[in-house]
C-alpha cells in the first residue's frame, strides 16, 4: 500500500512539474495573444459581414492603428465600380528599370520598412532572352545597363488564379472588377497560395510590419493598404483604395518613363484598350493558362 502511495506521489509531483515547465515554455506566446482582441478573433469572413459590421471593423482597425502605432488613419471599404474591369499594361520598350514603381508601392501600401518590401519586383533581363534564369532583381547600378532590359513583375490579377483555387479558407478571391484580393483578417497563413503563384507575386508577413507612424499612409482600404497583421499573406491589389475612386495606381503615377498604362478594359476608348488592340502584347507564362490581367507590350 505504501508503495502504491509513494508511486502516486512521485507521479503527481512529476506531472505537476511537467505542467509548470510547460506553462513556462509557452510563456512567450503572451506577446502574441496580447495583440489579439476577442473581436478580431471572432470576426467573420469579409463577405459575410453586414454593412454595419464592416463599419465596426473599419473603426476598430483605425483605433488599433492609433493605439499600436500612434497613427491616425482612415480605413475605407471601396467596392468595385459596376461596368469596370481593370487591366494594366507595361511597355517594355521604355521601362528603364529605375524601380520608382516599386518605391511608390512601398510607400503607398505601408510596407515593412526594414525589408524594403514592395509588391513589385523589377527583373533586369538579358537582351535576347525572356528567360528569367538570366535575370536579376537586386541590381544596384546605373540603369538602363548595356545589354539589359527591364521587366517589373507584380500580381497579374489572373482570371484563373491558382492562388484563389488553392486557398483552403477562401481568404483570397477575385472581385467583380477583376482584382484578386485577400482578407487579411481571415488568412490563416498556410502559404499554399505562395507555393501556387507562378509569378512570385505574393508576400508573407514573416514578422509584424515595422513602419514609423509618420510614414504611414493614412488613406487606407480594408482589402488593400492597411498595415497588415503578422503571419498573413499580402500582394498587389491594383491600389484599389485609389483605383476604385477613379485614380491611377501609385506605381502608374510614379513611373517616370510612362511605361505603365492602366484603365477600364470595358471602355473601348481607354488607352489600355488601344494598347491591347494595336501593340505587340503578351502575358507572362501564358502556357500555364492563368489568364493574367496584366500585359506586357513592345512599341
Amino acid at each position: 500500500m505504501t508503495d502504491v502511495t509513494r508511486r502516486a506521489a512521485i507521479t503527481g509531483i512529476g506531472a505537476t512539474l511537467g505542467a509548470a515547465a510547460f506553462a513556462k515554455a509557452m510563456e512567450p506566446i503572451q506577446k502574441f495573444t496580447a495583440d489579439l482582441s476577442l473581436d478580431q478573433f471572432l470576426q467573420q469572413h469579409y463577405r459575410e459581414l453586414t454593412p454595419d459590421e464592416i463599419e465596426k471593423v473599419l473603426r476598430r482597425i483605425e483605433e488599433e492603428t492609433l493605439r499600436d502605432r500612434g497613427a491616425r488613419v482612415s480605413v475605407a471599404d471601396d467596392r468595385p465600380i459596376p461596368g469596370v474591369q481593370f487591366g494594366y499594361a507595361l511597355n517594355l520598350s521604355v521601362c528603364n528599370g529605375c524601380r520608382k514603381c516599386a518605391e511608390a508601392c512601398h510607400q503607398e501600401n505601408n510596407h515593412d520598412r526594414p525589408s524594403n518590401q514592395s509588391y513589385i519586383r523589377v527583373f533586369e533581363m538579358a537582351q535576347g532572352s525572356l528567360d528569367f534564369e538570366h535575370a536579376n532583381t537586386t541590381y544596384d547600378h546605373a540603369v538602363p545597363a548595356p545589354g539589359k532590359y527591364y521587366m517589373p513583375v507584380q500580381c497579374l490579377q489572373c482570371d484563373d488564379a491558382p492562388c484563389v483555387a488553392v486557398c483552403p479558407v477562401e481568404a483570397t478571391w477575385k472581385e467583380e472588377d477583376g482584382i484578386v484580393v485577400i482578407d487579411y483578417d481571415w488568412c490563416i497563413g498556410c502559404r499554399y497560395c505562395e507555393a501556387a503563384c507562378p509569378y512570385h507575386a505574393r508576400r508573407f508577413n514573416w514578422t509584424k510590419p515595422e513602419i514609423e507612424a509618420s510614414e504611414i499612409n493614412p488613406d487606407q482600404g480594408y482589402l488593400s493598404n492597411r498595415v497588415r497583421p503578422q503571419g498573413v499573406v499580402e500582394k498587389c491589389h491594383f491600389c484599389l483604395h485609389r483605383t476604385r475612386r477613379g485614380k491611377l495606381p501609385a506605381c502608374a503615377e510614379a513611373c517616370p518613363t510612362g511605361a505603365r498604362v492602366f484603365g477600364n478594359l470595358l471602355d473601348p476608348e481607354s488607352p489600355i484598350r488601344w494598347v491591347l488592340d494595336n501593340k505587340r502584347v503578351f502575358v507572362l507564362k501564358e502556357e500555364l493558362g492563368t489568364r493574367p490581367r496584366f500585359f506586357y507590350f513592345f512599341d
Partner: protein
Amino acid sequence: MRRRGVRFSLLVILPIIGIAGPVFAQVAAAPVDRKLHPTEVRNPPSLGTLDTGLRDPSGASIGVACATCHDPSHPDALARSRDVPEDFHAGIELHHGTLGCASCHAPDDRTRLRLADGETIPMRDVLQLCGQCHGPKYRDYKRGSHGGGRGYWDSTRGPWIRNNCVSCHRAHAPAYPVVMPAAPPNDRFLPIASDEPISEGKTGQHD
C-alpha cells in the same frame, strides 16, 4: 410554315424595337451628359526658358525667358551651324539627331517654334512640333500609351494630368538619361547583386 413564323415574329419584334429603341438610346446617351473632366497637359515651367544654373529657395532651377534677350520685334539671324553657341547658350548641348537650332526655333521670333512648313506655333504647342518627326510616338501619346501622367483614369471623377514631351525629354538632348535606380529589395538570404553583371558572365550561356 416556318416562313410564316418568321414573318409573325417580325411583326411582334418590330414594334418592340420601335418602343425600346428610344429608351435604349436615352440610357446609352446618359453617360455623355455627365460632366467629364478634360485631360490636362502639364506645361513645365522650363518651357521657353533657358536654365541659368541658379536655383530658387525651393530648389527649382531658375530659367530666363528667351524674350529676355531676344526681342521679337528685332529679329536677328539664328545660327545655322550645329556648333554649341557661345556665351549665354554655352550650357546647351545639342544631341538631337542632325537637328540644328533653326530646325525647331523660329528664326525671327525666339518665343515661338517653327514647324517644318514654316508656320510658327507657341512654345506650349511643342507636342505638335515633336510630332512632326516622331509620328508613332505622337500617335501613341494621343492614344494614351506614351508619356504617362497622374490623376484619374476615370474622367467622370477627375482629370488625367498628362506629361508634355519636354516634361520628360530635354529638347536639346532628348534621349532618356541613365539614372541610379531606387533601392533594391532587402530580402533575407538574397544579397545585393555585385555591380559586375554588366560583364558577359551572367548574360551569356547558362551552363
